[in-house]
């Protein structure tokens, strides 16, 4: 029947759209990105906070740092282990992680996030404080 042809075509189109990720990837392997640590970062062993926290929640501490520095004028952060850090993305974070393209960008691109931090902060700070 005439209608059946339409209905079946519509169904096929719908299922193709729904299953798009399956046939688009065609079973090709998509390995997750490998982030590269610089020698300096490796030597440090641990970041400002524990690794698992940094992996999932680093944006929170950056937000907190910005607030503390910009609104309260306080530049020193003390982590739970009692170690002190200057709260600065450019001068502290990027000091160890000086390889933005091999470190930050790797996961950010993979997860399709475009942090606005880089709107202002340049990736290889030259100025020293």
């Amino acid at each position, binding site marked *: *029947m005439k*209608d*059946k042809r339409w*209905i*079946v075509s*519509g*169904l096929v189109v*719908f*299922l193709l759209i*729904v*299953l*798009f*990720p*399956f046939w*688009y*990837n065609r*079973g*090709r*392997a*998509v390995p*997750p*990105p490998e982030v590269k640590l610089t020698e300096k970062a490796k030597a440090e062993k641990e970041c400002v906070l524990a690794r*698992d926290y940094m*992996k*999932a*929640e680093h*944006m*929170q501490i*950056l*937000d*907190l740092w910005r*607030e503390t520095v910009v609104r309260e004028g306080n530049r020193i952060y003390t982590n739970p282990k009692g170690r002190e850090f200057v709260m600065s993305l450019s001068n502290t974070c990027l000091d160890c992680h000086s390889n933005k393209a091999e470190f930050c960008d790797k*996961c950010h*691109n*993979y*997860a*399709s*996030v*475009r*942090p*606005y931090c880089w709107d202002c902060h340049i990736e290889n700070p030259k100025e020293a404080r």
Partner: protein
Amino acid sequence: MNTRYLFAFLVVFVLFLVSWLGAAAGLGWLFGVVIPYAAVVVFVVGFARKVLSWAASPVPFAIPTTAGQGRSFPWIPQAKIDNPASNWGVFLRLLFEVLTFRSLFRNTRMRLKEEKLTYQLEIFLWVGALAFHYAFLTVLLRHTRFFLEPTPWCIQVLETLDSFFRVEILYPGVQFGLPAVYLSGFVLLAAVVYLALRRIVIPSVRYVSLASDYFPLLLIFGIAFSGILMRYVTKVDIRAVKELTLGLVTFRPTVPEGIGAVFYIHLFLVCTLLAYFPYSKLMHLGGVFLSPTRNLRGDTRAYRHVNPWNYPVPVHTYEEYEEEFRDKMVEAGLPVEKPLADAADEAAQEKE
């Protein structure tokens, strides 16, 4: 209190508990691989079977809703979309029905106002439904970033637009706004809360609501709530999540370590929704296209609609009846359409 929404609520709560305990017990493979695959299969097969069963059903009557002036004399303006006479008109009617919910917009409510019956536009249901469906669509499209690598540019544009408003809150103990706030997620949550409350609070609507009306709303509430919780509060390692989801769609399933339990809860609720979909009222996704009131042309006066299920019925028409009994009818003095003489003439002509 009402057993119908309590039941739906209870089911969602049990689903939440099951996935939470499962994640805590380290059943990552079951909740991260086996159940998602099973849910997709049930969804695809169930959806196809349901639509094919509809395709095999006849449309016995032409019942297009005539929501405007039908085609008539050339000097009477026709409502070309509300009472379409062409396939093109039907296409437009369905298109606007699907994109803007026009028949829901026409929803009115009767009220007695100063002893007089009035009809009011019930706009909030329409607004709520539109907000809900478009927010859901946006969230779904944005989620493709977990299943495609690299994320297509159009999805990136959508993400940028959706996070246009920078809502940032920072108090001691409260941090919100990084990662960027996606409006659609919150619109979805607000809309689903409104739609659920509407069914629970308004007595007349509650009266016609079943557990199967509450369940999808509560389930989607659970999905949106767990998603928002995962993005803004108890964060998960997105890199590990994407490793898992890409593993699923490339048929190389892996379960990376250290994905928070919220993710498995979110995913399990989504799987439930997928598997439940083909067997529920949610099939209006496919059904709207197959509604005879919307997809038939309003040309029933110009063309006869024959039920495709009609089988040939043996009939004896009046003409045949008269042919058979004409002499006896004339003899009895009954009126006949063709006098005896004419009938004899015709018979003679046919013989020649």
